[in-house]
């Protein structure tokens, strides 16, 4: 099997070819399921292929044009309207090339839409750029992968496939061109989607430049509506330095891209600039943003604006940006331009010096991209660092929506940590509080670094009147651990479930004495469940027992639960996972403030104490929303059964006092 690497995109094709057979057509099947492309290969010197034609000497691969276009349509261009961008790009590059010959020359592009009797309109793109002679037509329009624009960074089109994009919406393309470099006559190139083309010299002389005409296919007429063409041309070419006119058959008009984008315009005040940027965002991106931040980077030659989202953004989402490359729209969804912590902005930028990938959805990861990312990140950082003083109200709104982004930045950047830590909010047993509010409450606060543990103790902590901070979310523990760097007198101390529970109040001496027998019975009956019992005194009194497993104990419980249903292979694997570890002990704290527990203190019947401990243990599991294993379920039944038996037996015994 031979693999060919496609230069258009990295599609690997498996080629069935038997080297023993001469002149056998090679069927290229793109790995991604595109149609088969048939390539005829001739053995050198053989002179004949299956068609019987004599073709000796050096040859080139021929390709099925429709197959290539289908590949482009499905795997390179995300939508058919991109054909217009490709053709505009060719015009822009032609004008740029002509400017190199004559810097007084201005250049312009016209888009003419002509209706037709058969209902299939024709779009003509006219530029007065460098033009082509006949040899160049053959070379650049009819040789796929050949581009006149690979000599450096000035040109947009480098992959040699732009013209093909026209076949996504049309079955024929006619290009008329006159070179500005020589006196050679004007030429016409007429290409068809069946892969054939003809070239002829024109008798009439025309001005240098190129006219490319495409008649719409029946299924694409919507794209050829004048308003749609104008909309697309503006979307793609808004920033182009050359005017684009859209008219019908030569009518005059203003260029559609005459407006200067606000980040390139001058304003008397910063407020006026921000208002203009936000208005632009509203129009161009159809969204109301919280704020707009001008962006600049010398490394990548970037200018533009970052729009701060007015609503919270998923931290895990990849933010996509509208990116122009050398003033032509590259992508509405480019990634990787800003640092990871800047997930709360959508940027609209023009880049001059970054290399796009062939798919045009991102940039090659190189030093220049990294330097650009750093510089753009610095713009945003400076914006954030000055925002609290510059516009306190807007900062409050920003904080309410994007505190996670600030935490991300503070975790990464020491300066930002020192500036923002006091404002950052954290979840506590008494709702959301900032570090500033926590400091005002006292000189010390405790936090639980694991979310699962926080959820376990939150209710009890709150009932005790204890403020505990939930540091289980990403960045929180790391940030809290460093608070004393900025506020040395404020202690932020980690605590876990075991420590928290151990710190609950001890029963009185009398309660301990009375509860000794109950505790001993509980220890014995709960031992098979790897659980030990303790007596404590805590709020709320309605809670008879607090079950407090640590992470390891919770894991062992989940293994036991899974093993009940797993097949022997997977059950065995789970057993192997826990075999080398001794089962950790969970602790259940019986609450002497609870009336049911109080009644048990001083009871002498061992059986009653054991069954009661079991029932209260299961109840504590349910209150902690822990699923019960089969053993624990049967414990509940046994416990209740035991209590009922005890009650019945007592009833059947003669009343000694009555005798």
């Amino acid at each position, binding site marked *: 099997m031979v693999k060919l690497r496609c230069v258009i995109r990295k599609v690997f094709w498996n080629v069935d070819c038997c080297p023993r057979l001469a002149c056998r057509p090679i069927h290229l099947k793109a790995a991604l399921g595109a149609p088969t492309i048939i390539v005829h290969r001739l053995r050198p010197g053989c002179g004949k292929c299956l068609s019987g034609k004599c073709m000796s000497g050096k040859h080139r691969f021929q390709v099925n044009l429709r197959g290539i276009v289908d590949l482009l349509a499905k795997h390179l261009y995300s939508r058919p309207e991109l054909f217009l961008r490709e053709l505009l790009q060719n015009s822009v590059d032609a004008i740029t090339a002509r400017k190199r010959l004559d810097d007084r020359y201005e250049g312009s592009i016209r888009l003419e839409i002509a209706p037709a009797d058969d209902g299939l309109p024709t779009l003509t793109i006219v530029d007065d750029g460098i033009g082509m002679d006949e040899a160049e037509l053959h070379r650049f329009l009819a040789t796929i992968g050949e581009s006149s624009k690979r000599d450096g960074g000035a040109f947009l089109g480098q992959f040699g496939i732009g013209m093909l994009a026209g076949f996504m919406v049309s079955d024929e393309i006619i290009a008329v061109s006159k070179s500005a470099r020589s006196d050679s006559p004007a030429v016409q190139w007429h290409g068809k989607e069946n892969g054939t083309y003809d070239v002829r010299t024109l008798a009439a002389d025309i001005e240098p430049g190129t006219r490319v005409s495409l008649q719409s296919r029946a299924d694409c007429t919507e794209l050829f509506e004048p308003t749609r063409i104008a909309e697309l041309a503006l979307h793609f070419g808004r920033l182009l330095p050359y005017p684009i006119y859209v008219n019908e058959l030569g009518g005059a008009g203003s260029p559609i891209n005459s407006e200067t984008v606000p980040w390139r315009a001058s304003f008397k005040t910063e407020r006026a600039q921000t208002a203009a940027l936000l208005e632009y965002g509203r129009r161009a991106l159809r969204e109301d943003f919280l704020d707009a931040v001008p962006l600049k980077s010398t490394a990548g030659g970037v200018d533009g604006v970052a729009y701060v989202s007015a609503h919270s953004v998923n*931290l895990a989402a990849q933010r996509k940006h509208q990116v122009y490359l050398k003033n032509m729209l590259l992508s509405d969804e480019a990634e990787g331009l800003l640092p990871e912590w800047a997930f709360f902005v959508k940027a609209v930028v023009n880049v001059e010096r970054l290399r796009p990938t062939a798919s045009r959805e991102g940039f090659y990861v190189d030093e220049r991209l990294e330097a650009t990312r750093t510089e753009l990140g610095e713009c945003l950082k400076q914006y954030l660092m000055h925002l609290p003083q510059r516009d306190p109200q807007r900062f409050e709104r920003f904080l309410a929506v994007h505190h996670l982004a600030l935490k991300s930045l503070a975790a990464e950047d020491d300066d930002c940590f020192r500036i923002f830590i006091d404002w950052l909010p954290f979840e506590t047993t008494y709702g959301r509080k900032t570090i500033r509010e926590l400091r005002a409450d006292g000189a010390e606060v405790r936090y639980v670094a694991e979310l699962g543990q926080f959820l376990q103790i939150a209710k009890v902590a709150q009932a005790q009147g204890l403020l505990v901070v939930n540091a289980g979310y990403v960045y929180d523990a790391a940030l809290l651990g460093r608070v004393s760097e900025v506020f040395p007198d404020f202690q932020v101390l980690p605590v876990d479930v075991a420590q928290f529970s151990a710190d609950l109040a001890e029963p009185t001496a009398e309660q301990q004495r009375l509860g000794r027998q109950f505790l001993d019975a509980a220890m014995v009956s709960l031992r098979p469940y790897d659980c030990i019992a303790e007596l404590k005194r805590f709020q709320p009194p309605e809670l008879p027992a607090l079950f407090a497993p640590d992470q390891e104990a919770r894991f062992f419980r989940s293994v036991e639960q899974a093993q009940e249903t797993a097949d022997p292979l997977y059950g065995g694997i789970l057993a192997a996972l826990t075999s080398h570890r001794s089962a950790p002990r969970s602790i259940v704290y019986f609450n002497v403030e609870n009336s049911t527990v109080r009644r048990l203190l001083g009871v002498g019947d061992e059986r009653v104490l054991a069954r009661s401990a079991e029932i209260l243990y299961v109840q504590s599991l349910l209150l902690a929303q822990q699923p019960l294993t089969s053993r624990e379920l049967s414990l509940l039944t046994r416990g209740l059964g035991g209590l009922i038996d005890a009650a019945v037996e007592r009833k059947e015994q003669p009343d000694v006092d009555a005798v």
Partner: protein
Amino acid sequence: MSMPFEIETLVREADALPHCEAQVALYERAVALADSVNDLQAGYELRLKLMMSAVFAGRTELMFVAFSWCSAQSDRRPEQFPIRNLLWQFKWFVDNLGDFPQISLTQINAAFDDMRRRYVQHGASLHAVWNIRRQLSLILRDFEESDRCHEEFKNSRRDEFSNCIACVSSGEIEYFAGRRRWELAVESFDRHISDGKRCLTQPAVAYSRVLLPLAKLERWDEAREYQRKGYRLARNQSGFTLVFARHLYFAALDNNVAAAKRMAALHTEAALRATSVYDRMQYVTALGACALCIRRSGGGKITLPLPAEMQLADAKGKVDVAALLEWCRADAVATAELFDKRNGNSHISREVKEWLSMT
């Protein structure tokens, strides 16, 4: 708050987070709630989310438990829980078995055979299966098997169960590096980077995989550049113990004491709690190499947050590098011997000793 609403709230909160401990805890809690009311369907669907979160947050053991439960439900109620839904997760399960020396070769091979059988039953390509077996064989240090699987893998058809192109490409780097074919590993990396392949974990993982091959080829400048780029991408990720181990080891090899100290200070505490025994062993080995590098440069004590039970830090949190080196050596060698006993060879012990002497 009613139960389904509470589950929905937990899930909504978890879905908004990246893969991390907090997300795992939220999904765990949602699963527990679903189980407490015997809602099988919810328990199954929530476990699928928990598995993904656990794998990427480095909580492999939770993924094992959740997968076993789901697999059992699939066997009992195939129409309600078709096995097709678990074919992707099967890869995670089998791929990570080798990381635990207490799981025997018999168990590993049986699980792999079960995976293969189900893929064939379902009509899926074996592309993903050979990929997993190749990676697993490297962990088991069964090099002949890894070579065989590599050939089978290359000749298999991609399908919906194949890893993404970025991960497949990065896996090839790992294979060549594991086979000590340093130049092929670097060539594979060059292709990976020039193609701009990206996903949740790539190219961060790929950058870490190429460091040792470049060091072996004495292409130090390139390696340093890739460390800089790769570490920046990896630094805040969860479940990256093995990636940090590679970066730390390279810093030690490169005698970059400052970088080694910085990385050790940031990652050691979490790495020592890693549930993957293999990843933890690699990290401890790299930490030992780091201690050796610091000692050779004349350093005596470093600030290093460590679990209290290790009893290596003094009252000021300073750790003696000689004591650290000895601790790492003892811990890593003991773990390596467990792996060798399970694998039936002595490759891992030899490699650990090689890393610890930085040869």
